């Protein structure tokens, strides 16, 4: 390899991956620029491992879509872009790789850029950058390329530094799903993570789905005394009245951001080799809520790569298919639409002990 390191060799640590030259599962690698620290989650491209790709992508704040200058937009690129769109990632950088193979010619880049752009727009993605690179030779990765003087915009590293960090939605109404209730030296403390807004002592809150009211007496943290806490913080809460709280309850402010219903409409991706067939009862988990559900209607069954509708009013959803569905829950669910507060608008379906689908509320 004349002194060069194959990137795949850094990320692919399983013997099977190195021997077969494929990535099986996501790997995380860490680096930092002067601006901030990064974690690269290398997501496998192979169709067998889409659940691993989704596991990686669901933790990401931005996506780098790598398209081979030689091959263009393939089936897997399409599938990944569709899933990225569904997961609500909006910061996208498209990298056109292997420019060295096409002699660094601008015409190839422009042609491919147009093709990719058209496709991504069709799935509601609007990339921030298109960058021609050769990962092997380092062109436009960390340094501007001598071989592509026609390209004047950012390198990959510069484009990464221009992205913005996701911030938890502090400016919205309070959403505090209760994770557990601890009894510590005679005190009952409800713990959880604030998903939106601010919580402060003395605040009047509603308890969903029941609708009762109470007042926050104190915020409990170890060795720390504080009167308010914001979205993203894992805290404990004591209330003034001895109200009954349990996992799955959601404390919220008066704002009408949360819906309570036993019916939701959703797009979901099926991630199990064993298909779903209507009539099967499965579990749904949203934030800390858990309930049995019935998928009452499968309006469309869609190919996750071509986005072609395979069947309307279907009776099953197979592995890697997208379903546009109506779900009936056994217990009322507290939620928002995915585009309002995504932490409260996304869920997984669980069969036995296993996560078998991920979905968003539409």
């Amino acid at each position, binding site marked *: 390899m004349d002194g060069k390191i194959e990137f795949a060799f*850094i*990320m692919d*640590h*399983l*013997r*099977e991956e190195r021997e077969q030259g494929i990535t*099986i*599962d*996501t*790997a*995380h*690698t*860490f680096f930092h620029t002067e601006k901030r*620290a990064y*974690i690269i989650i290398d997501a496998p491209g192979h169709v067998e491992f889409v*659940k*691993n790709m*989704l*596991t990686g992508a*669901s933790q990401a704040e931005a996506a780098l879509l790598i398209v081979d200058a030689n091959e263009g937009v393939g089936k897997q690129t399409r599938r990944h872009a569709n899933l990225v769109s569904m997961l609500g990632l909006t910061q996208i950088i498209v990298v056109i790789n292997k420019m060295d193979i096409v002699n660094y010619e601008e015409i190839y880049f422009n042609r491919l850029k147009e093709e990719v752009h058209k496709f991504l727009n069709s799935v509601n993605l609007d990339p921030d950058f298109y960058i021609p690179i050769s990962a092997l030779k380092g062109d436009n990765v960390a340094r501007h390329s001598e071989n592509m003087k026609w390209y004047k915009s950012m390198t990959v590293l510069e484009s990464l530094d221009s992205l913005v960090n996701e911030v*938890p939605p502090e400016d919205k109404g309070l959403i505090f799903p209760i*994770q*557990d209730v*601890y009894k*510590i030296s005679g005190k009952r*403390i409800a*713990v*959880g*993570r604030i998903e939106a807004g601010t919580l402060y002592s003395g605040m009047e809150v509603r308890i969903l789905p029941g609708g009762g009211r109470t007042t926050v007496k104190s915020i*409990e*943290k*170890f*060795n720390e005394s504080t009167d308010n806490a*914001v979205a*993203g*913080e*894992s805290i*404990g809460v004591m209330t003034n009245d001895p109200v009954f709280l349990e*996992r799955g309850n959601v404390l919220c402010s008066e704002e009408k951001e949360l819906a309570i219903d036993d019916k939701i409409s959703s797009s979901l991706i099926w*991630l199990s080799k064993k298909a779903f067939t209507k009539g099967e009862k499965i579990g749904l*988990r949203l934030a800390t809520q858990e309930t049995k559900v019935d998928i009452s209607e499968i309006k469309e069954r869609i190919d996750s790569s071509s986005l072609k509708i395979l069947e309307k009013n279907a009776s099953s959803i197979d592995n890697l298919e997208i379903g546009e569905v109506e779900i009936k829950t056994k217990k009322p669910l507290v939620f928002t639409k995915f585009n309002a507060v995504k*932490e409260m608008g*996304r*869920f*997984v379906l*669980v069969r036995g*002990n*296993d*996560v078998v689908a*991920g979905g968003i509320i539409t």
Partner: protein
Amino acid sequence: MDHLDKLENNSIYIIREAYNQFQKVASLWSIGKDSTTLLHLIRKAFLGEVPFPVVHIDTSYKFKEIYKFRDEYTKKWNLKLIVHRNEEAIANGMGPNKAKLECCTQLKTNALKDAINKYGFRALYLGIRRDEHGIRAKERVFSPRDEDFEWDYKNQPPELWDQYKSKAKEEEHLRVHPLLGWTELDIWEYIKREEIPVVGLYFAKNGKRFRSIGCQPCVSPVESNADTLDKIIQELKETDVSERSGRAQDKESDYMMQKLRALGYM
């Protein structure tokens, strides 16, 4: 909220989630910097107390400083400590002078297996991090081990958002990894911020310090003059020597960690 706050809040969420799901849990404590940081986070998650046992898998080959530190903080933090050893293998002379894979398997993996069976734990907290080793970079936050203790790394469950694999079957246990997303530098910056005590071996003496501690015969120190937390943090920002470079396990062969971990090694 800064970078360390985010990491802390996420780890506390994971710790509370696993306790809610499994109740019968324990935390593995090697007395190293990562599992000690994890213990600190567990104390934070449960507002000062650790509501489950802390398990030290003792190979009998640990540094004396490690044993001293363990006993001191077990008292200070009021821990329910379980020390578990593969006494039979130790009595039969198992040691690192024999094959290293065999020694790790018998004194660590098998001792751990035995402890899980004896106490019936359904989930174990471990302080591993993705940036430590390429194999650990592949891990999930909730990672199942089957009845033979094996890690099926080719078929891991999906983990979307903060919804983790739930309720292990009776015959398996789950490994819970609250520090997976932390780096070595994050750990040290957090240790400094939170004033978490660590074993003295990490600080340089006579031009050498330990980046990673464990069994005395199988770790060696690195060249370093970092004798304070600030100097360690500065060193890590500049070094290109890997954290586990002093670890014999990582040197044996390229895939030794994969083999060890597939068998249930920590």
